[in-house]
Structures are given as structure tokens and as C-alpha cells.
């Protein structure tokens, strides 16, 4: 069996990125209008959407690195898709700029007057201060862009050169790559999300976000492959066996997310110390409690039971529904983590949330599909490609 190394063509490559870009720009303009109306809430809304799309990028990056680290053969056919997701790290760096203007709205540790009144904030000041925060922002995006470039470029170079030693090079990079990834992901979420409530801390928080990212990453890879399949690309190459394995991976991370989410809650519930429980007190208030229950059901119980059977995983219609559902649930999860800080009385969607979503999402999708027309959809010269082509589950 042979795979043609063609990039994305047709309306998905030409028209779609343009439409998405227009939607994105209009969305950003709309969110700018929202900013003028309620700038305080705008930043929370924007941060939620930003973190959602960042988690897709990081989920894709995790997938790429872990495949090299484990010398996986089955995944070669879908690896380029995750490389594309990961390569959006540069775009996310640009989209982070608005957050920098909202530091005073988002993080009350940035107010010198607050810190003066607050012993805990004074103790944490050597870490939680604006200059060091900005340095870390640069480091996080530096690491992500560097990793994304390295893994993307070497893989694409192999398409033309056919040099098998690049695979070994990537394998080597994946060793320190996974360490840098884990540390940068954890600390970025401590900085950007956990420090909204600087008195509260959870050592599980980075892992919690990682679990969500892994779900978002695998779900996005599957969704992307299904969209391409619908448009007639890679129909005979990415087969039910590959979707079956993506489904298994997704399923595993759904359970992992539950495990981590429960552990975080359980320890804080058990210890019952105000520093810990205050956070859950805020997130279980009013209709946020309903959202938490929806997450238990929709993020865990439903997919756990419904996606257990291999017949479900191998059914592409079911898989499509499940991956879209999981992305929605992942967004709701982040919404539940971030938004109670501003919507204290309960869950209340605003048109500004949609504006931010269309703004960041439009640009994200536009850049993603525009890039897909530049390089082959499959790493055609990967030495493990035959293994992936003949993969049976």
C-alpha cells in the first residue's frame, strides 16, 4: 500500500481558512465591543476561551512527544494532524497579548494595595509579582514554540529528505521534550488560572489541566481526521483500527481526568481546611453546583458507559459525536474552573463568551487549515509508516 504525500486541497484548504479568518476577526471585534461594555468580565471570558484552545495545542504536543518517546508505529498516519495542532503554539502566543492588559482585572495579587493588607500575598510575592510573571510568560511560550518548531520541522524535513535518522533525533528530543512540556504546562496553569485565587493551592491543578488537555488533544486529532475523511482525504489509509485506538486513548484519559478531578476534590474535602475548601465553596455555589454535576455525568459517566464497547469506538458516527461532546465538556470544565471567579452568583452565559470563542476559535481554525495545505497530510517517509498502514487492533 502506498500513501500519496499530498497536502490538503479543495475548498477545505482554500475557502474554509478565509471564512474562518473572517469569523475570527469579526469575533475579536465583537469581543472588543464587549470589552468596552464590561472589561472586567471580558478578561475572564477571554482567558477561558484562550485556555481552551491552548489545551488543544498542548494536547497535540503531548500526543506528538509521547509517540516519539514510545516509538509508536500505529500512530504515524495521524501524527501529522497532531503536529499541525501543536504548531498553533505561535498563534496562541499572539492571542495571549490581550490577557497581559487584563492582569489587574484577573489577578488581585497585582494590586500593591491588596498585597500590603494580605500577609499570604506578601509571602508569595517573590513568585507572584508582575516582572517575574512576564518572564515566565516568555519562558512558557518560548518552550512551546521551540518544541513545536523542532518536532514539526524535523518531521516535515523527513518528508522530502527521507532521512530515517531524523526519527532517532526526534526520539532523543522527546526525552527532554516531555520534561519541558510537563513543567511548562504545570507552571503556566498555576500562573494563569490558579493564581486568580492566590490563597488557594492544589498540587493536582497542573495534572488536572493536563488530563483535560490530553482529552482535548486526542479528541481534536480524531475530529480533524473525521473532517478530512468526510472531505475525501486519507479515506482508505486512516482506517477503523486507527480510530479504535484513538478512541481507546480518549477513553483512558476520560478516566484519568475523573481520577485526578476526584482526587483533588477528595483530599480537600477530607482535610476540610478553609484554604482548600474556599475554592470549592465558590465553585459549588448556586447553579455552579449544577454545572459540577453536569460535569460528573457528562465528562465521566456518560462517555464511560457509552464509549466502553469496541463497537462504539469503531463506529465513526458514534466517535464523531463522542469527540465533539468531549470538547464541549472540556470547555464546560474550564468554564467551571475560571468563570465562578467573576460570575459569583451562578452560571450565566453572556454573548461576550461567544464573541471570544468565535474570535480565538476562528483564527485558530483558519491558521490550522491554511497550514495544512503547505505540507503533506501524512509523514510519508517515516520509517514506521508501513507499520501504521498495516495496523490492526
Amino acid at each position, binding site marked *: 500500500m502506498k500513501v500519496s504525500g499530498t497536502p490538503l486541497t479543495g475548498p477545505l484548504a482554500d475557502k474554509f481558512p478565509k471564512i474562518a479568518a473572517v469569523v475570527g476577526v469579526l469575533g475579536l471585534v465583537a469581543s472588543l465591543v464587549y470589552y468596552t461594555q464590561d472589561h472586567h468580565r471580558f478578561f475572564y471570558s477571554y482567558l477561558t476561551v484562550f485556555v481552551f484552545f491552548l489545551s488543544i495545542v498542548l494536547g497535540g504536543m503531548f500526543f506528538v512527544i509521547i509517540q516519539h518517546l514510545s516509538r509508536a508505529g500505529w500512530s504515524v498516519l495521524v501524527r501529522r494532524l497532531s503536529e499541525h495542532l501543536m504548531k498553533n503554539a505561535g498563534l496562541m502566543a499572539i492571542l495571549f497579548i490581550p490577557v497581559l492588559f487584563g492582569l489587574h482585572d484577573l489577578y488581585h495579587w497585582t494590586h500593591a494595595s491588596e498585597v500590603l493588607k494580605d500577609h499570604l500575598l506578601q509571602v508569595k510575592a517573590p513568585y507572584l509579582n508582575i516582572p517575574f510573571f512576564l518572564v515566565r510568560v516568555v519562558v512558557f511560550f518560548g518552550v512551546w514554540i521551540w518544541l513545536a518548531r523542532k518536532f514539526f520541522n524535523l518531521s516535515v524535513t523527513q518528508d522530502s529528505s527521507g532521512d530515517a535518522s531524523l526519527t532517532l533525533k526526534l526520539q532523543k528530543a522527546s526525552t527532554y521534550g516531555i520534561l519541558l512540556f510537563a513543567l511548562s504546562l504545570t507552571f503556566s496553569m498555576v500562573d494563569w488560572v490558579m493564581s486568580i485565587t492566590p490563597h488557594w493551592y492544589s498540587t493536582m491543578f497542573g495534572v488536572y489541566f493536563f488530563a483535560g488537555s490530553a482529552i482535548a488533544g486526542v479528541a481534536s486529532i480524531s475530529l480533524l481526521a473525521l473532517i478530512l475523511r468526510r472531505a475525501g482525504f486519507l479515506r482508505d489509509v486512516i482506517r477503523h483500527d486507527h480510530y479504535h485506538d484513538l478512541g481507546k486513548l480518549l477513553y483512558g484519559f476520560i478516566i484519568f481526568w475523573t481520577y485526578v478531578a476526584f482526587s483533588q476534590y*477528595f483530599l480537600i*474535602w*477530607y482535610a*476540610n481546611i478553609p484554604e482548600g475548601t474556599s475554592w470549592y465553596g465558590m465553585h459549588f455555589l448556586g447553579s455552579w453546583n449544577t454545572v459540577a454535576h453536569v460535569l460528573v455525568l457528562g465528562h465521566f459517566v456518560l462517555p464511560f458507559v457509552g464509549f*466502553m464497547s469496541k463497537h462504539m469506538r469503531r463506529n465513526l458516527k458514534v466517535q464523531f459525536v463522542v469527540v465533539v461532546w468531549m470538547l464541549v465538556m472540556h470547555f464546560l470544565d474550564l468554564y467551571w474552573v475560571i468563570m465562578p471567579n467573576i460570575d459569583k452568583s451562578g452560571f450565566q452565559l453572556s454573548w461576550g463568551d461567544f464573541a471570544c470563542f468565535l474570535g480565538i476559535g476562528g483564527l485558530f481554525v483558519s491558521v490550522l487549515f491554511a497550514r495544512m495545505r503547505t505540507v503533506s497530510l501524512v509523514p510519508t517517509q517515516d520509517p514506521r509508516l508501513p507499520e501504521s498502514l498495516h495496523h*490492526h487492533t
Partner: protein
Amino acid sequence: MANEIYGLVAEFDTPGSLLRAAEGLRDFGYKKFETYSPFPIHGMDAAMGLKDSILGWIVFVFGATGLTCGFLLQTWVSVYAYKITVSGKPLFSFQAFVPVCFEVMILFSGLAAVFGMFTLNSLPELYHAMFNHPRFAIASSHGFFVSVEAEDGLYSEVETWQLLEKLGGKHIATVEA
């Protein structure tokens, strides 16, 4: 009972020819036949026309039972039998039950998987007629075998023999029960 026949056995050279032989027997309508190879062959389940194992359902039922038992046990102990308040929490603190529920579910599922597998494979099996076949020892190193049981409705020593020959079987022989 030296005359009773277990069935016919045929030998094949490669995993591929064994797979095709299994498909041939399946398409002909045979049900009680078995294949033997030194290693698992991808696609053999489908080639032999085997249905999905029911082991998954057994594990599911036992897992759900374990979950329920673990939950009921702790609820009974903490809420009715031995009412002890721990760190000021309500007697019915389901959060605290979760780890044990999880563990009991795992325990029941694990045991069900192991012993269910043993039962479905009718293990331990201390005697099997195939070992009466003098060449069968090479099935653990480089031999690929098919056996068709005499109990199969379609079995006839002549016709089955001819079919096995047609499918490319070598060293065809009867095996005593």
C-alpha cells in the same frame, strides 16, 4: 475405546495458509474446528467465524456487583451498624466511600476476568485428544494445524478429508479420542 475418533487433523506450512484454511472451513459451514499455531495470528477470530467473547459482559456484571456491594457495605457500616462520627462529617459521607467502592469493583472485575476466562476456555483441561497426534508437538515451534471434530454435523471422514486436502492441508490424519 481405542476406536473412537476425535476428528481429522491437517498441517499447513504458513500462518497465511492456516488462515485461508480456517476461512474455507468456515465458509463450508463447519462449526467445531480449531486452529493451532505457535503464535497468535491476526484476523484468526474472524477467519474462524468466532463471535465476540462474552467475557467482557461477565466482567461488567461482576464489576457492577462489586461496586454496589462496596457501596452498600460501607453505607450499612457507617450509617446503621456502627455510627461513628469522623472529623465532624455526616455519617453518610459518600465521598469517603469512593476509594473502597473503586477497589472492590476492581477486585470483582479482576477475579471475574481471570476465572471467567478459565471457565470459558474450560481450563484446567488435563486431557486433550490432539496430543494423541504424533506430529502435534511442533505446534509449539513451527507447525500450523487445523482439527475438525467428528462431532461436527458436517463431518464425514471422506469428504472432510478431501476438503482439507483441497484447502492445502498436509499430513492429514485421524486422531483418536
